[in-house]
Each structure stands twice: as structure tokens, then as C-alpha cells.
């Protein structure tokens, strides 16, 4: 052992909560050590106690009612569990930093970024100097006085990281900070933290993460937690790499003369709110999906993917003035938000399901009732047939014994599979249908993603269904889709067959996205990635802020989609596409 004491030493930590059903032990004699300068990843299945551990490390359970603590936590030489509230605040101010999952609500909306940083530094006993931490995260210095609403998403993220690091912490705790972000933004956050670690090698980082790719790439050491204990402690490279999903869509490649199923042209969407400028989320977007051509819609957070899905499925009403053409199988989709639209049972949506209480599964109903409901809405009186279908499907997908449970008693993976069955039971089996799936895997443990992909593949064989996947997951895209549409800033910027795009992305955003999804990086990090931000003006190319091949044309004109063989791209200077093999 070296002379430097560990930053964190957890010995025999146990945490139990009082619940209506009795005391529930979440952590049970957990031991953990983090040395200065180390970057430790915590992984483990849902419910293993990862979040409870990070909360305990931040002292959030000290003196909390209904929480029973045992064992010791030593952080920076202090015994965390016995600290007085005052000493705890001091420790937090000086040595700890937390980056939370919910990025958008962590900044104080009524204070300038500089002011918030100054406050943090003063609390930590440092000289108030907001510029230095901001400069380290490539935050433009002239925006120091801006308040959060004046910043773009990317800038906010930078400001948050700067804020977390402003007190020059000795320990940074990040709990699932990236699971709601797209690949690029995940990478940006970790690049920023890594940059800081290079400056201050003594800073230790503890992060909880589902994504094996990020763990392998950034962690020095990985700890696997299960049932409240450390079950494995080792080298991140030994963690199983990103799962190899079998490409289930490959064999049914859609041919070029398949009829167009969804034809959307010139789709705009403007959100109006009182006292605000209307926000243009979709800017005249064109999208065509052919029959049985499963399409992935990928793009940055906030680029309008979900809005598009909501318009296509009828969650949001379509304003006929904001759509040149919007048809499905030859019939207009306008008015789809009304319950009696003829296409109602031919377009359904699989929702992303992060939460048992407010997700797409009614928490009051049992699994059987939930899956039966859409069938009864489609075919009143088909109760018997519907029930048979439910039980057959539950059995087929390994959910047979869950029929009487409620959402709260299902794991995330089970919930997602139930949700897929629910959505499918609302589809007519006899006509071509469209199933829109909004990030069906983003909240899942990697272990469950395979099951969800299997169920999508099996149902695609059975129904005459075409998928539109909205996803951040490149793996899901490769496994299930034929074509991919890349969205950026409310427009489609590239559209191509999946294998062409993965080999040879043309648009700068697609290039960045694919590069971020890869594990190997240049030694010095990625300069384009660190400059990456969403555009803040409507003129010019939305990617020009970080694109390498930016010219004067890019500043003046917004590029339109141009055709290159079987693909389309919106760029003034697209690299020459490689020959089709």
C-alpha cells in the first residue's frame, strides 16, 4: 500500500429502508475502496443497490427517517455517517461533486452560469473565478453571464459539468448521467470529465453505468454489485463487450419497388407557448417508408424525433397547414388524433417505459388486462379470443407466470416486453401496419435488450408490420432495421440503408455519431466531439459549429437533401461516397 490514503473506504455498509411491507435491506455488508485518481465504474442489474450506494456516498441517508444505516464510510478522511449536518455540508462543498441523471433541471434557472459557478467556488473556499472551469469544458467565455434558458442543450451540459467540477472535488459521483443522452452527448460528458482528470490526477470518479462500452472505455476498475454486495471487482476490459445482437432483419431486405407505406412531405411542427417565441421543432421534413422496410430514426436529443413519431401516430394533432403530404397506405393521416379515424388500428406505438407508475402500462391493471385492453377496443366482444392470444404470447415470450402481476412488480425488461405485446394487440393483423417504437431499449439493462429484440423480430414475422424505431442504440439499429434516417435540428440530414451508413456516413453528424459509437479513440480525445453542440440559429448548416469542412457557404445557406444513388444527404460538402461493394 502506498502512503496516500484512499479517497473512499466503505466497510460493511448496509442500508435498509422501512417500507409498508416491512424492512427491506438494499445494501448488505458492502466493502469498497476508491483510490485517489481512480475512475471506478459500478455496474450491476436493476435493483442491485447502485443508486442507493451513490446516495449513501453523498451522505443523503444521514439521519433520514425510515433508513437504517450500518457500517462505515470514510470519505477524504472523514467518517461520513457520523458527520454533523454542518460538517457534511462542508465536506460536500469542498470535496464532493455529484452529477445527476436529470440534466435539464439541475441548473438554477434564475442565476447566470457565472454566478452559479462563483457561488460554488465561494462555498468551497476557492477564489471566485468562473472563467477557468468554463474554459476547461470549452464553454464560450462570452456566455458567462447567460442564464440557463439562453443556452443550447450542449452548452447547458457543459455548464453542468463545469459546475460539478468547480469546487475542485476530490470525488465525483455520477449516477447514470448518460442513460438519457444520445451516443454523442454521452461521450461529450465523459470526455469533459476525462479532460479534468488529466488536469488534476488526484480526482477520483465513481460512476454508475449500464453501458458496457462506456465502462470499457473510461473506467480504470469496475465493481459489479448484486444483492447489495460486491460480487466482482476487476479490470473493465474483462466486462463483456457490447452485446452482439443477431441481425434479425437481414434476411428480409425490402426491395426497391415495394409500395410506399408512409409518405410524409414538408412536415413542420411549431410549438406555441404564451410569452415565448414559437419553437419550430420540425422544419419541413420529408420521410418515406416503404412497406416492410424497417426504419431507424436516429439523431441528437432534441432534434425532433419524438415529435415526428407523435405526429405519425396521432398523439399530437396534425395541422393540415403544417404538412404538405402525410399519408399512410394511400389514406390521409390528418385527424388521426381522433378516436374514430379509419387508420386508428393500423398505426400503434410502443412507448419507452422508464417508470412503473406513469409508464404506458396502467399501474392499476394486471398484465393480462393491460394486454387485453387494446384488443377489446379494436374488437368489442373478442374477450375470449383476446385472452387466448394474451396467454399464448405470454407463454411464447417467457412471461407466462406474470399474467396476474401489476406493472410495479415487473422488472424493466419484463415491462418492456409486456408493453410491446400491448401495442401489438391493438394492431389489425390483416392489413399492412406501422409500429412506431420510441426508444424501446434505452432504459434497459444490456442483458434484457436481446429479449426485446427477439420479440420484435418474432412479431414482425407474424404481422404485416413495418417498424419505425426511434433509438439511440446503434446495436438495435443494426439488428432490426433496413434503412436509417438521421435527424438533426428538425430535419432529415441523411437517409441510407443501414449497412451503407454504418460503413460510410456522409453527413458530419452521422460521422460523429458513428465515431462516438466506436470504442477506440484517438489518444487526445476527439476535437469535433468536444466542440459538438446543437445549433442556435436557423440560418446556415446546423452542423457548422463543429464540422471540419466548414466554409462560407455553410454559414450562409442551409443545405437540402440531395440524392446519391440509394442514399440522401443534406450537406454542402459531402465526402464522396465509397463505391457500393
Amino acid at each position, binding site marked *: 500500500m502506498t502512503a496516500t490514503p484512499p479517497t473512499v473506504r466503505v466497510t460493511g455498509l448496509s442500508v435498509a429502508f422501512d417500507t409498508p411491507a416491512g424492512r427491506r435491506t438494499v445494501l448488505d455488508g458492502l466493502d469498497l475502496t476508491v483510490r485517489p485518481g481512480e475512475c471506478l465504474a459500478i455496474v450491476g442489474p436493476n435493483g442491485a443497490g447502485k443508486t442507493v450506494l451513490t446516495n449513501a456516498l453523498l451522505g443523503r441517508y444521514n439521519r433520514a427517517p425510515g433508513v437504517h444505516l450500518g457500517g462505515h464510510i470514510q470519505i477524504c478522511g472523514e467518517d461520513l455517517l457520523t458527520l454533523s449536518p454542518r460538517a457534511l455540508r462542508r465536506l460536500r462543498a469542498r470535496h464532493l461533486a455529484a452529477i445527476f441523471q436529470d440534466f435539464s433541471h439541475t441548473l438554477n434557472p434564475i442565476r447566470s452560469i457565472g454566478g452559479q459557478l462563483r457561488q460554488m467556488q465561494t462555498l468551497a473556499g476557492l477564489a471566485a473565478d468562473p472563467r477557468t472551469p468554463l474554459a476547461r469544458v470549452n464553454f464560450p467565455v462570452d456566455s458567462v453571464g447567460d442564464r440557463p434558458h439562453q443556452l443550447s442543450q450542449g452548452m447547458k451540459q457543459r455548464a453542468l459539468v463545469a459546475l460539478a467540477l468547480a469546487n475542485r472535488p476530490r470525488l465525483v459521483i455520477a449516477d447514470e448521467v448518460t442513460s438519457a443522452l444520445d451516443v454523442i452527448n454521452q461521450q461529450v460528458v465523459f470526455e469533459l470529465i476525462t479532460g479534468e482528470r488529466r488536469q488534476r490526477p488526484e480526482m477520483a470518479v465513481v460512476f454508475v453505468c449500464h453501458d458496457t462500452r462506456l465502462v470499457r472505455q473510461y473506467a480504470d476498475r469496475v465493481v459489479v454489485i448484486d444483492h447489495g454486495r460486491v460480487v466482482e471487482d476487476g479490470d473493465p476490459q474483462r466486462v463483456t463487450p457490447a452485446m452482439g445482437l443477431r441481425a434479425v432483419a437481414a434476411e428480409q431486405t425490402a426491395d426497391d419497388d415495394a409500395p410506399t407505406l408512409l409518405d410524409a412531405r414538408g412536415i413542420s411542427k411549431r410549438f406555441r407557448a404564451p410569452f415565448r417565441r414559437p419553437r419550430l421543432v420540425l422544419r419541413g421534413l420529408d420521410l418515406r417508408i416503404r412497406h416492410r422496410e424497417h426504419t431507424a430514426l436516429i439523431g441528437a436529443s432534441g432534434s425532433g424525433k419524438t415529435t415526428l413519431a407523435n405526429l405519425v401516430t396521432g398523439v399530437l394533432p396534425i395541422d393540415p397547414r403544417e404538412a404538405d403530404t402525410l399519408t399512410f397506405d394511400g389514406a390521409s393521416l390528418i385527424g388521426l388524433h381522433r378516436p374514430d379515424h379509419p387508420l386508428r388500428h393500423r398505426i400503434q406505438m410502443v412507448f419507452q417505459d422508464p417508470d412503473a407508475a406513469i409508464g404506458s402500462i396502467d399501474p*392499476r391493471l394486471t398484465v393480462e388486462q393491460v394486454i387485453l385492453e387494446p384488443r377489446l377496443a379494436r374488437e368489442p366482444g373478442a374477450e375470449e379470443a383476446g385472452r387466448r392470444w394474451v396467454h399464448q404470447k405470454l407463454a411464447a415470450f417467457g412471461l407466462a407466470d406474470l399474467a396476474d402481476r401489476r406493472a*410495479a412488480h415487473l422488472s424493466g425488461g419484463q415491462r418492456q416486453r409486456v408493453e410491446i405485446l400491448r401495442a401489438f394487440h391493438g394492431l389489425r393483423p390483416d392489413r399492412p401496419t406501422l409500429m412506431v417504437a420510441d426508444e424501446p431499449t434505452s432504459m434497459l439493462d444490456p442483458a434484457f435488450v436481446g429479449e426485446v429484440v427477439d420479440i420484435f423480430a418474432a412479431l414482425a414475422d407474424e404481422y404485416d408490420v413495418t417498424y419505425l424505431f426511434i433509438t439511440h442504440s446503434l446495436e438495435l439499429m443494426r439488428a432490426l432495421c433496413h434503412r436509417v434516417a438521421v435527424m438533426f435540428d428538425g430535419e432529415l440530414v441523411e437517409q441510407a440503408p443501414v449497412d451503407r451508413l454504418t460503413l460510410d456516413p456522409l453527413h458530419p453528424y452521422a460521422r460523429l455519431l458513428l465515431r462516438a459509437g466506436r470504442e477506440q479513440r484517438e489518444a487526445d480525445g476527439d476535437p469535433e466531439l468536444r466542440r459538438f453542440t446543437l445549433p442556435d440559429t436557423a440560418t446556415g448548416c446546423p452542423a457548422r459549429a463543429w464540422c471540419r469542412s466548414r466554409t462560407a457557404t455553410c454559414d450562409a445557406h442551409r443545405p437540402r437533401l440531395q440524392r446519391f444513388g440509394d442514399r440522401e444527404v443534406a450537406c454542402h460538402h459531402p465526402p464522396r461516397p465509397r463505391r457500393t461493394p
Partner: protein
Amino acid sequence: MRSPTRRIALDLGALALIVFGLPWLTGPIGALITPPPANTEEAPAPTASDSTAPDSTPPAPDSAPLDEAPLDPPPGERAPLDHGDLFDAPPAPDAAPAARGDALGDDDLFGDGDPGPTSPDAPAESGDPLGDALFADPEPAPPSAPERTPARAQPDPTPDHPAPAGPDPLTLSRATLGSLLVGLLTAVVATLLGGLLGLISGYRGGLVERVAVRWFADGLDALPQFVVLVTAVALYRDLAGTEGDALLLAVGVLIGAVNSTQVLLVVHHQTRLIAARKYVIAARLMGWSALRVVRRKIVPHLRHELIIPFTQLVVWGLFVETALSYLGFGPSSTGSTLGAQLHRIDPFARPADLAPALVMCLLTVALAAALRDLGDAIEARLGEPEPPTTDAP
């Protein structure tokens, strides 16, 4: 106290005790809080002593007997038991022994085994300045009390109800139930009306929302509630020509309508939140009609949000009705609620005259506790299920 059923049972028991038992105890309690006469160790009849003004003559111990005098000339039976007038002549013959017995039993508690002979003398000896200061105007009270009280008593001059000075236990008990009824009526009306408007405006949005929230709710809230109520009750009374108990229901409905805005705003807000949840959107995508979505997917998730407003409204309805009736704008004439009782007694000459107010206070507390526990139990049964056991709290 783990099981909610037991807790509710206890609460309701306590409530019943208060509604039916407390009125019988107010006399002794009133006696307890009154300081004993300064110069007698035996403290024969404390309630009588304090109500006696210093300058009142010995044979007229108390305003109540004065009022009674013309209506109930033979006081022979009542004379020895002076503090019996706390409970007055009971309206029902079978209630009389109970009142008497109670009073007697409690009297023994005060250390005087034989109250009969001592009590008539007591007023003469006692002169308690503190009691006067608290409960009677020192100067004009004794002469004016006999004049005022009969005026109040006018609506009810039957020999069965000879004097309104102190409410007897049964009247008080009935008045408590009347108040409770108004409170419940208020809450029910407010919840139904506000809930309906809130659901429609929250789910539909747009113009309906503006009308219901901006014009109806905000508009009504901008007016002083009490003025609106007084006007409405007076108008109703004149137009419908009802009085007394018939007015009781009308007052409950009116208070409920005016207070429905609270429920409206809560329901409106919650409906908007719930309507944005994924399972509601999923139900819409199934092709359910708006009515069905609201009935099957929103209302069941909203019910437990109404529990707290409901309990508050019961109590608030009770309060407002009491105030209205006390001022004479309610069913004051028949004395069917606590406020009406206060209205009848108004010049509060003795601590026991405040019995309705005391009942009111305790009733409010007990009601709030009982309803809250009831709400918890309902919530546990039909509210959102507990958070998933797999996630950290």
C-alpha cells in the same frame, strides 16, 4: 395502531363520542374552566357563581332562571339544583333524567356531596370579578341580559323549550349533526361540481379551460367568499321563501358551490398531468373515446388526489356555515346547527354558553383526523401501487 382499519375505528369512535357524548360533558367542563368562588372552600356550584354579576341581587342568580321565570313558573323541582340550568329543561322527557344524573354525578366530582341545599346560597356569597370580566359585561350585562335573551328566544317559545340560555345536550347533539351534515354537503357538492369542471377543462384544454379556470374559478375566487355567500343565501331565502331547516341544505349546497373552485383547480391540474402519462396516451391510441379515457384512465388515478381537499372542505363548510348562522344568515331560527345555537345564545353570559363553540373546535379536530385516516386507507387501497421493489426509494 398498525392496522388502518383499527385507526379509523378509533377515530370514528372518538368522533361519535364527541358528537353524542361531549354535549353532556360541556357543563362540567365549563364548570372546570371557571375559577371557583373566592370565599367558599366548598365551591358549591361554580357555574352559577361566575354568571352572577356582582351587583345582581341574591334571589336572581343567573340570567337563565330569569328567562325561565315567566314561562316556567313552578321551579320547585329545579330550584335545589341550580347548575341544572346549564342543561336547561330537556325537550324530551326521557332525556331529563340523564341530564340530571350527569349533572349530579359531576357535581360530586367537585367535592360537594350534597349540592342541593348549598347551591341557592352560593350566588349570594360569590362575587368573582374574573368571571365577570370574561363572560359578562360588568356594567350593562345584568339588566340587559334578561331583555335580550327572550328576544333571541322568540322563534322557539314553546313550553317544551322554555329557555334558550344554555343548549341542552340533545339540542347540542342535534346541532352538531346538523353542522356535520352541512360540512359533508359542502364537500360533496364542491367535489362533484369542481371535479366535473376540472376534468373537462383539464382534459379538453383550450376554450373550455379558459372559461372554467380563468372565468369561473379565478373570477369566483376574486370575490370575497363571505359576501357572495351572504348575498346568495339571502337571495335564496327571499326567492324560495324557505326558513330554518330547509335552508340548511341550501346553505350547504351554496357553500359547496362557492368552494368548488379549490377542487376544480386541483382536479384540473392533476388531469393535465395524468393526461400526459403514457398509459393515457396509449388508451387514446387504442381508439377510446374521450369520455372512456377520462372515466377509465384518469378518474381512477385522480380519486386519491381528492381526499385531502375533501377533508378540508368538510371542515371549511362547517366553519363557514357556523359563521353564517351565527350572524343570522343561515338556518339560525331553528337552531339546527352549532352556529345557529351560538346565534341564539349570543350574549355569552356563562362559560357553558360557549359549549357549541367548544364542540365545534373538537369536532373539527376529530373530523380532520378521522377523514385523513380514512383517506389514507382509501389511498392504500385504490391509489397508485407502491413503488417497484426493484428500485431504490
